């Protein structure tokens, strides 16, 4: 297959597949390789046979939870913000043609030993057990300020400067209690820790607005989730890339990397032969010597349940956030719950994935509060992952590396990485254009 390409992409994780699709639309000739025989890399969804062989190699799956093929368990638990950037990219590239999405039923936050729904409207705020009568009024005033804030209208700024004043100062101004600040900062703005309190309020304001506009889109929660699991996302973008001419090779380990005299990337050798390209995009596992562990480690516990989460009104899917303050930690604990209503497991089962950044040498004990929330489990599979960052920006050797998937609860940092990589690879910012309709594409392909 000795051939020349514009870009060689290594690894079929979500970041790589989105870039592969976008570059193919741009007319680049893309070769996309994965050493594994399935799509998705770290962002795949696995059936139980694959899952047990990865996390409990000594105990293969025996069929105790029904048909293997009914199960698609995400390796990285995340939800899409329905008004977030990934949704925007999905709509513009029409990858929505290949997938279906469903709302996540609820968004909950842990406070004083129990969980409560995150209020997303005035109506919900008024009935929320999270706040007493006076606190509700203060909360309403605060939310009113956020919603009314208009950049060009200084009268809506209430003498705050979002680029200078800290979030802590704004909370103090509205007289909000610590517990209320916890759920605003952690369950709405989705900050993983309290560092944001002393930083300018702009970022938190943007995050709260993203939460509120996402809730406003479909109503029940700000999150959506694809039928058949997150592993559908990289596959959908891979298909987009293929339709625009991208070549895909799975189950193909890299035998050798080729470099030119200046030390720039030149191509790869595989069992299929040599493929050349001046640019390489890859996930950190392909170039372990070009990335550094950030020191942060994420623990993820995949729990199989046969009941919904107590206190969620039997929700078929939820996000539960345990703010760090509430359990004496530095990092929040996230619980993502999905069930057969999203076609990711056999009927009657639920999958709860607990994740957090490890703070001690007994990480499984750190998850205790989350296990109390989810109730009895049928089985638990645990994994610990290092977070890697690329050492360089790729300008020297033309190897552009993605970051590891972080422990955040949604994809906003992933799409930031996509846009940043796109800019470094192409030299210009990503401008999303509406993809052509099926009819227009048929015409372009000479099928009219």
């Amino acid at each position: 297959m000795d051939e020349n390409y514009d870009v060689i992409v290594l690894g079929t994780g979500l970041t790589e597949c989105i870039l592969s699709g976008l570059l193919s639309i741009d007319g680049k000739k893309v070769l996309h390789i994965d050493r594994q025989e399935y799509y998705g890399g770290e962002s795949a969804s696995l059936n139980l046979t694959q899952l047990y062989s990865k996390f409990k190699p000594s105990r293969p799956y025996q069929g105790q939870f029904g048909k293997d093929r009914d199960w698609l368990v995400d390796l990285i638990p995340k939800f899409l913000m329905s008004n977030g950037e990934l949704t925007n990219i999905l709509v513009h590239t029409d990858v929505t043609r290949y997938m279906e999405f469903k709302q996540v039923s609820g968004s909950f936050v842990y406070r004083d030993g129990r969980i409560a729904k995150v209020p997303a409207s005035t109506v919900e705020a008024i009935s929320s057990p999270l706040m007493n009568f006076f606190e509700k009024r203060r909360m309403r005033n605060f939310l009113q300020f956020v919603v009314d804030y208009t950049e060009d209208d200084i009268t809506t700024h209430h003498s705050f400067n979002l680029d200078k004043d800290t979030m802590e100062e704004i909370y103090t101004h509205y007289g909000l209690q610590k517990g209320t600040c916890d759920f605003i900062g952690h369950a709405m703005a989705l900050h993983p820790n309290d560092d944001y309190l002393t930083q300018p309020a702009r970022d938190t304001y943007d995050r709260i607005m993203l939460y509120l506009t996402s809730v406003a889109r479909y109503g029940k929660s700000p999150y959506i989730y694809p039928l058949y699991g997150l592993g559908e996302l990289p596959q959908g973008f891979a298909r987009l890339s293929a339709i625009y001419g991208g070549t895909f090779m799975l189950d193909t380990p890299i035998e050798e990397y080729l470099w030119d005299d200046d030390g720039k990337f030149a191509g790869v050798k595989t069992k299929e032969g040599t493929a050349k390209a001046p640019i390489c995009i890859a996930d950190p596992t392909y170039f372990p010597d070009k990335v550094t562990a950030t020191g942060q480690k994420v623990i993820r516990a995949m729990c199989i349940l046969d009941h919904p989460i107590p206190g969620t009104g039997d929700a078929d899917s939820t996000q539960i956030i345990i703010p760090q303050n509430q359990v004496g930690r530095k990092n929040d604990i996230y619980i993502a719950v999905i069930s057969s209503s999203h076609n990711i497991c056999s009927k009657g089962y639920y999958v709860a994935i607990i994740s957090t950044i490890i703070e001690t040498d007994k990480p499984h004990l750190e998850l205790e509060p989350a296990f109390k929330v989810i109730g009895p489990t049928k089985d638990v599979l645990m994994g610990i992952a290092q977070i890697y960052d690329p050492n360089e920006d790729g300008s020297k050797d033309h190897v552009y590396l993605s970051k590891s998937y972080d422990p955040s609860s949604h994809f906003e940092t992933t799409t930031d990485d996509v846009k940043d990589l796109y800019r470094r690879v192409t030299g210009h910012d990503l401008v999303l254009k509406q993809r052509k309709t099926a009819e227009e594409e048929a015409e372009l392909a000479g099928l009219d």
Partner: protein
Amino acid sequence: MSSSLGSEHRFAQFKLVLLGESAVGKSSIVQRFVKDSFSDFRESTIGAAFLTQTVDLDANTTVKFEIWDTAGQERYRSLASIYYRNAQAALVVYDITQESSLDKAKYWIKELQKQARGGIIIALVGNKTDLEQERKVSSEEAESFAKGLGLLYFEVSAKSGTGVRECFKQIALKMPIEDSLRKRRERKSRTVDLNKRPSTNEQQCAC
């Protein structure tokens, strides 16, 4: 299309996937079916790997096929599970002038049986009957193989058009129409349409 738009008109949609070795004429068969045309020098499939076409079964029943082409992902056997997901029909194509393409077809049939849902209707289709004098695979051999596995079997020519419409019509007749109408109604009510922009009213926060 039928003129009857009364409440009794049944309109059911099914996903049909194409499989087979590169260059056996998968896209050409679809081009003949959807556009009733043929081009001698087709590039490998780029763009337009998602086409639809309807078949009227009778005055009150229309079947619409949502046709998925491999878009080249078959070349290194790198089709994703999303490709097989919810497919209700499959056209496994070989070239009657290439012996090896029937072996590849057998591989794809095995893949389908592993990856696709039970009850999928599979048709084994020998293409290029316009090249009868170069035939390497006998109709008897392919047909007995297909029948042995309970598959539909057709021979067609995308170039001349012979057999193409009939092949899709026979598949359409096998589609579980009532079942599909019921399931579609259920599904519509539980998924969200990302392409639907909220009205300006809704876009404002609900606080």
